[in-house]
């Protein structure tokens, strides 16, 4: 058994997607794109992102309403039968997805398929609530199996992340239940475990056979990197120790081996960035930028001087200086790095960017001016959360 979709159709779809990106970026002409598209036809139904969202929401409503109708019919059935029915219902929707929408209607990530997939996972899992309620380890194994199956057969990205999270929960839970020393070594085990997983996924991604799952493997790599970082992050370790292991810290006390975690909080992002730049690995670079921000937050949280506005201003200034100097430095490409946009990302179009600007900068700024102005401005300005 392989992925559920028609293989040639899927390969052609991806190839044409790439070719389209080349056309938009001006690497090939429009005529060339048209002839590539006609040479590599695909019957798969894979609408654009907005249509996918619309279809997903509409399908979720339909499925919810169908569930409601069925629920009205079986209201008087006793609970154990309900569990069985729930699993059956989940399996039936999975069969619908697989046989009708994917096999005969050729849907590929159309929004409907995602809705049906999550719907069936939900109901299969709900069927086991009664039996596994007090056995979280088994329940997380069930989730792991369901998500892993979904990401293998339907190449679903959210399921990939879900599977890894279920796995991480399982590892955490087993060590946590073991108690004593086992609880202490959770961070180390996590770092070792997810580092090996990371390299496993990375090597796996190089192979020709795994090409179809490339996007899943990229997600898996990123999630592994985040778990490695979280396991070494001082904030995460400290707060979880207090929260779950009843560690009672007095003033002036610190968690055991605090310096190690301080070190890791700095070291891991730096390593990510270093290797990301060295190996030209976009996953590492992007994850490193995110976790650097979280490291800064970690240190500010415990060593704050009480002036968030100064921190904001200075970190903004640093970012501006760093990025402008990098842009100037890359005016001519260096070591294969370029500041030019060689491949247009379709989600980064300028209309979307303009809207982001107005939502992150505009709405809080502009009304502020006039709410300070004297309050005669009606219900508008004062409500913002500046």
């Amino acid at each position, binding site marked *: 058994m392989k992925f559920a979709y028609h293989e040639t159709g899927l390969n052609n779809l991806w190839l044409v997607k790439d070719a389209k990106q080349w056309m938009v970026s001006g690497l090939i002409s429009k005529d060339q794109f048209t002839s590539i598209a006609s040479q590599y036809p695909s019957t798969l139904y894979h609408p654009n992102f907005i249509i996918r969202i619309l279809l997903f929401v509409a399908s979720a409503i339909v499925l919810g309403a169908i569930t409601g109708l069925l629920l009205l019919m079986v209201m008087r059935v006793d609970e154990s039968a309900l569990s069985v029915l729930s699993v059956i219902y989940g399996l039936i929707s999975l069969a619908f997805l697989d046989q009708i929408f994917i096999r005969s209607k050729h849907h590929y990530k159309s929004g409907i398929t995602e809705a049906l997939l999550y719907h069936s996972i939900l109901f299969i899992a709900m069927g086991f609530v009664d039996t596994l309620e007090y056995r979280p380890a088994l329940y997380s194994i069930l989730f792991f199996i369901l998500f892993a199956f979904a990401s293998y057969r339907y190449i679903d990205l959210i399921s990939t992340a879900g599977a890894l999270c279920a796995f991480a929960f399982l590892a955490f839970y087993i060590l946590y239940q073991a108690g004593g020393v086992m609880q202490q070594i959770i961070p180390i085990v996590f770092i070792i475990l997810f580092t090996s997983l990371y390299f496993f996924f990375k090597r796996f991604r190089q192979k020709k056979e795994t090409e179809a799952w490339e996007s899943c493997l990229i997600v898996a790599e990123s999630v592994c990197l985040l778990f490695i970082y979280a396991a070494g992050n001082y904030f995460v370790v400290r707060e979880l120790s207090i929260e779950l292991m009843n560690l009672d810290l007095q003033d002036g006390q610190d968690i055991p081996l605090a310096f190690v975690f301080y070190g890791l909080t700095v070291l891991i992002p730096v390593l990510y960035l270093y290797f990301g730049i060295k190996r030209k690995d976009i996953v590492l670079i992007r994850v490193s930028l995110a976790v650097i921000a979280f490291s800064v937050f970690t240190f500010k949280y415990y060593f704050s001087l009480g002036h968030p506005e100064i921190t904001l201003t200075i970190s903004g200034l640093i970012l*501006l200086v760093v990025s402008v100097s990098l842009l100037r430095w890359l005016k001519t490409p260096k070591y294969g790095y370029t500041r030019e946009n060689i491949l247009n990302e379709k989600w980064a179009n300028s209309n979307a960017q303009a809207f982001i600007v107005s939502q992150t900068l505009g709405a809080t700024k502009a009304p502020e001016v006039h709410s300070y102005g004297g309050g005669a401005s009606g219900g508008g300005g004062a409500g913002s959360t500046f």
Partner: protein
Amino acid sequence: MKLETLNELKEKSLITNDQFEKIELIISRKVFSVFYELRTLLYLGVMLFTTGVGFLIYQNIGQLGHILAIIALSVLSIGCFAYCLLKGKKYSKDKVESPNPYFDYVLLLGCLLFVSVFGYLQFQFNFLEKYAQATSLITAALFFFCAYRFDHLGVLSLAITAFVSFFGIVVSWNDLSSFDDLQNVGLVISVVLGVIAVGIERLGIKKHFTFTYLNFCSLIFFCSALAGIFDSYRSGYIPYLLALYAGVGVCVYLANWKKSFMFLLYAVVAGYIGLTYFLAETANWDIVGWLFYLILSCGGFIYFIVSFRNYFKRKE
């Protein structure tokens, strides 16, 4: 994409040798673009810096260091504008590419610093005491000028938000309640602004700006109409419902005209909410009836989209 596939394209002579070499450089990561990463950093820098400064300005008011800070920020803001005037290309009715990758962000920084300093001065000296709202008009005017002069969509969207905030409307997902008493204002403003935007496009000025205008107009229009419908204290919701459906019609037309599914999304969601509310007011269904309504309406919608799939493909 793997290299083998690219080779295949070359062998079928779907791409030329030249193109093969260029694309091969990208796929094998011999050329590696950090365009988006650096721009994200720049954007975050502008955002953090101006937010920090915004807080900073209202603290320690009256001290010497504070006055110096205000002067420094004013100088910085003027510096940004001066830089843009010096480096920027000449004004043109069409799209103008920025001269370097950080030009856009210098302009954005200048504009946001202007808002901070201007807001502070107004707060401290109250020189527009009687015309408090005029501050947002002045800001909007400056932003509109900058957006058109330097061809900046981000500043344009800031200008539009500043302009509508003059009428008390806040365009933000966090705070839709601001439409409560302003539905009529919102309806009128969005229509007027939309008509003006289309008029400007007809004159051939900055045609690529129209989308941003219309995006804001549709959002404001639908939020206002829905606020009007839900506000049961008013005499009747029917006029607002009719307005909503007029808006839906216009939006479907816009989706066709601008080749954008965004407008279709707005139209469908707003229209569906309106229809459901209307049925809830008039029809007297039990739970089963409602469940059937949901299944039939959404199912019908799915069927419609999927069967007319070719119509809903993105046109090249």
